[in-house]
């Protein structure tokens, strides 16, 4: 299943690197000295038991959380922390564990919302919706339609997403992230709560996105089968620390990882 060989990945260019990230809320340490990198074009999984700090890590990359220590390098630029707006405009898109869609809006509007940063017409034209603004809508609508076709959801185009079943909502959320044409796509538990068939569909879409658009993907996922199948490299967190980092095969055999997941034998 894996798209690239180990040698290809080792030679790849680093897209994002987090260096010594520490994050705490009051006295609780969510992340301690975590460093890893994500290379251009790879599918990178972040795994770990519940409460390991996976979501916190994504929130740091995405700019929702500001780490107390450490730096984030994205596309060669070093930041102490990102603003969400800044992260989005520099090419980071994400989905959420518990589907954060605009529930009262249609599928199409949700995906068009993902085009927000690509549209530039000013408030004046927007209010009247004439001339350049209307033309711009049409152009971006075409891109949105491509994504809808790609995700095989044309039949739900005009349905408010709040009424869709969970599996489709997840797909629309992926569509919204894709509409941003991101360089780095963060997927937070894209298969959570899905049945086998939906999981297979979603895995296929993730791999297709990676292959067709060349989008670099970082995902958090609990389903080990899926993770080992589709990802190029895996980083393992436990209690806010990195305990392993490598190819799926490396990680699978790692004693620390087995301990973290299964506990210590008595």
């Amino acid at each position, binding site marked *: 299943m894996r798209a690239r060989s180990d040698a290809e990945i080792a030679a790849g260019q680093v897209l994002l690197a987090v260096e010594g990230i520490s994050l705490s809320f009051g006295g609780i340490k969510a992340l301690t000295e975590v460093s890893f990198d994500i290379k251009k074009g790879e599918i990178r999984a972040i795994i770990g038991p519940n409460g390991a700090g996976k979501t916190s890590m994504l929130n740091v990359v*995405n*700019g*929702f959380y500001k780490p107390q220590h450490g730096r984030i390098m994205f596309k060669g630029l070093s930041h102490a922390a990102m603003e*969400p*707006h800044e992260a*989005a*405009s520099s090419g980071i*898109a*994400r989905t*959420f564990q518990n589907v*954060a*869609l*605009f*529930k*009262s*809006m249609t599928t199409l*509007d949700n995906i*068009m*919302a*993902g*085009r*927000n*940063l690509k*549209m530039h*017409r000013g*408030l004046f034209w*927007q*209010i*009247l*919706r*004439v001339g350049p*603004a*209307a*033309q*711009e*809508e*049409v*152009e971006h*609508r*075409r891109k949105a*339609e491509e994504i809808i076709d790609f995700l095989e959801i*044309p039949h739900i*185009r*005009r349905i408010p997403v709040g009424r869709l079943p969970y599996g489709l909502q997840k797909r629309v959320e992926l569509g*919204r*992230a894709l*509409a*941003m044409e991101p360089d780095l796509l963060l997927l937070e538990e894209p298969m959570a709560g899905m049945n086998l068939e939906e999981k297979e569909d979603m895995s296929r879409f993730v791999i297709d996105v990676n292959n067709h658009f060349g989008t670099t993907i970082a995902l958090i996922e609990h389903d080990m089968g899926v993770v080992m199948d589709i990802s190029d490299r895996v980083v393992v967190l436990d209690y806010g620390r990195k305990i392993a980092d490598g190819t799926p095969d490396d990680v699978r055999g790692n004693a620390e990882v087995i301990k973290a997941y299964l506990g210590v034998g008595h």
Partner: protein
Amino acid sequence: MDFLYKFLVGPWIEMLSSPVFFGEVVIGGLLSGVMYSLVALGFVLIFKASGVFNFAQGVMVLFAALTLVGLMEKGIPLLVAIALTAVVMLLLAIVIERVILRYMVNQEPIILFMATIGLTFFLEGFGETLWGSDVKRLDIGIADSALSFPGLAIANSYVIWTFVGAVTLCLLLLFAWRVHAIRAAYALDSGTLAGSGNGSKTGLILAAFGLAMLLQRFLVAPDATFIGGRASRTAEFVASLSFIGLALLFAVLFFYAARWIGAWRARQTGAVDVPPMHYVWFILLGLAGLLAVSAGVVWAVRSGILINGFELFAAATAATLVIVLGVFFQKTRIGRALRAVADDHAAALSVGISLRTIWVIVWATAGIVALAAGIIWGGKSGVQFSLSLIALKALPVLILGGFTSVPGAIVGGLIIGVGEKVAEVYWSPALGGAIENWFAYILALVFLLFRPQGLFGEKIIERV
């Protein structure tokens, strides 16, 4: 027994016995209802875009009116003063975002609500410190009295048929527009270009029919006079047919022109969807609607119904605001971003929507709406502290219409306006007057019991 008669029977008999007076009461109610809608609109905007009930909306109306009057007292002409006040409201929005909202991202709605209460007290004091607290008059040059058209030398029949023709034109335009929208949607779903395909047969028949109706005016009654003199029955009938014919012709013509423009634009941009004809439609519909309304007003005034010119102006302002806001919210990037922010802060941030910009835009828009309401209410009843209390009247309007619906705010305002006036005039003998003061609240209470989401609000379904 007497009470029951006065309550259940009397009012209806009165309504039926003088329909013209009843018409006047209803029109008066509709027009004052529009003024409630105008205030409610400001609430809806902020609630829709940020999920916050903005307690300060009423005070923003007062603040805008105070600023406007203050500027006019300095000798600045009305239009310039309005523009300056709009700028002040924009600055206010920026300050509110800087000082309050910035620190409230992802907070509970109730906390934001409390912040707007604080804002209310501040603005009230600040406005009166700047401009003084005495009652001021705001003169916007439109008399608050019944309209009359004494010098208009057009025969009544002419006015009536203009009205009928324009209304027909409006309906046909709406119909054609709808058909086009549906066709475009279908074409999109099947992946083909809209603008191709048939439909021309119907158009041809309609056009021929319209032409025939138009021509018969010259064939059957070429010498019928409409202007100045009295028109015969036959002439009126013929005139009506020719107007409808003209309307049909125009509608068909516009429909094909718009479709052609749509297809041409699609070829130019290579787009799949063909919607870009809104402004053609909007301008045409607006013109036809304007014609219909003005002819209707002239007709109504001529036939003896009293219409208040000032309230008519208020209605026109509100209608314009609603149309512009509706298109803005539903069809544009920024409108979409506003709705996105209302639904989910985190998700909106993740697609790169800047909460700060959006909040400034929302509050500035609400400020402009407050300015419009301030001009109209201030012009009607003077600029004074009690202006901020009209926010209380907006509350039942919102409960009726639903907090999230722009059309709801309008319909809610109209229902309350008409209900109030009708109840006051016809049920006073039974209930003893001053019904206007409590009617809206009782109606709102009934709605809360039976339809808490309002007429147009989104039904809240909690999954458990």
